[in-house]
């Protein structure tokens, strides 16, 4: 479904990603593991077109999407959940979801009601301003907002960062639900334990380079992975 081939990405003049390649098959949950500053966020941003890679290629469903603007990518079915949530603070929770709504003609798709069903804590907050939500709630909202665009592929950037263990559990369970619903997910994480139960396949990134890859169960046993991930 998604294929990243040897991308190089720069922030201004500094070189961040070096020859990063990865693949995500339809229906899979793939994780991108690495420490802070390893290049996870940049990889996701490069895929989303927010920081277009200067070299290399990104393909979505076989189509070359290099240099395509983010809003077009979103319409092509990529949902993006940034690590810093980026909720529209001035808008209410309901409005945050409404403006993202992009119904797919002829199919059921996500609606506000369905999203609230999936994330019940958001429902009573419908008319509260996004900026007043707690960090965990904002993360839920960010995912909910991405779902409203009816994506096929969800880019999830560190959903568990800074969350209480109990919230992490809830997230894990929700993402599993999403997978059951047929969503493809690319998950950037540094929490190995969290991703372990979820992912089908994993990549380890460090210093802007992919170090190794494989089914998650194998990765856990890999000595280098443990070192890189700091376990």
């Amino acid at each position, binding site marked *: 479904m998604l294929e990243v081939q040897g991308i190089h990405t720069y922030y201004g003049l500094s070189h961040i990603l070096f020859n990063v390649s990865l693949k995500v098959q339809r229906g899979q949950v793939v994780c991108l593991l690495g420490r802070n500053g390893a290049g996870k966020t940049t990889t996701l941003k490069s895929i*989303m077109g*927010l920081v277009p890679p200067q070299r290399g290629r990104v393909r979505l469903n076989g189509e070359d999407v290099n240099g395509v*603007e*983010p*809003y077009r990518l*979103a*319409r092509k079915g990529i949902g*993006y959940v*940034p690590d810093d949530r*980026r909720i*529209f*603070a*001035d*808008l209410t929770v309901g*409005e*945050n979801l*409404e*403006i*993202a709504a*992009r119904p797919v003609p002829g199919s059921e798709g996500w609606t506000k009601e369905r999203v609230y069903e999936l994330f019940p804590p958001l429902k009573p907050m419908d008319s509260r301003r996004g900026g007043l939500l707690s960090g965990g709630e904002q993360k839920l909202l960010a995912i909910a*907002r*991405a779902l*409203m*665009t009816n994506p096929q592929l969800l880019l999830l950037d560190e959903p568990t960062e800074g969350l209480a263990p109990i919230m992490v559990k809830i997230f894990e369970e929700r993402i599993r639900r999403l997978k059951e619903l047929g969503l493809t997910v690319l998950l950037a994480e540094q929490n190995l334990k969290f991703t372990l139960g979820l992912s089908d396949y994993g990549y380890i990134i460090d210093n802007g380079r992919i170090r190794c890859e494989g089914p998650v169960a194998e990765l856990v046993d890999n000595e280098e992975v443990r070192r890189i991930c700091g376990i």
Partner: protein
Amino acid sequence: METSFTLAGLASQLLVGLSRAMILFIVSSGLSFILGVLRVPNVAHGSLYMIGAFAAHTIAVAFEGSAAGFWLAMLCAPLVVAVISLVAERLLFCHLYEREHLMLLLFTFALMLILGDLTKMTWGADYRSIVAPPLLQGSVPVLGTAFPRYNLFLLMVGPLVAIGLWLLSTKTKFGKIARAAAVDREMVGAIGINVSWVFAFAFVLGCLLAGLGGALVSPTISITLGMDHSIIIEAFLIVTIGGLGNIWGAMVGSLIFGITQSVGVLVLPQFAIVFPYLAVVVILTLKPTGLLKSVW
């Protein structure tokens, strides 16, 4: 010197200040909207106001000063301005949003120079004047003094514009998107919205308000070149004391501007013009980011 410091005088002065504030509000709310959503300090806003006034005159004259012509002018002049701004946005602005504010400011200043000269080429240097329809001519007695009907009309239009803007920004999808884009334009793109067109519409809407302000003010003043210079600085100061990008801030700022000046006339006529500027200094000294919350 004997002054007319009576209650009636004060009341009528306040009314006049309020009606003047309405024009200022209409113009500065457009400026504020553009500042809030696009982050562009649009110095050319004043030129669009001037073009609005000239266009209103042309339309009104085409209908030989009839009442229908007047209303049509009030309606169409802002649309003329909107078309001009749409062209400017699609041709020029949309490539520059990522630039520094200072660059944008100078860019819009360049635009102001160009629009000023183009206005002169199109309309020439003569003074012009629009006659209000009979319904709005003359004055009505308010508290023992004569209060012009046209000012009453302005007092009605101002709140209507305010309510319209409020409905637009809270009840419509476009308004919500615009508010979201004001905070985080990249993220708005990431949820599948073409920010470029949102910006274009926001810009055109803001400029439309400038044109409307120009059209509405035209029956009360003589329409001349150079109208842009004085309004733009006032609009900027209003937006600043109100809180950049906050439409209610523009309302508050306009009221402060209008009222301090008209009351200033009672207190110290020679230096009435000083009062609004002093108000700005006092407000920014006490509250450096403006009275209401700024989106910046």
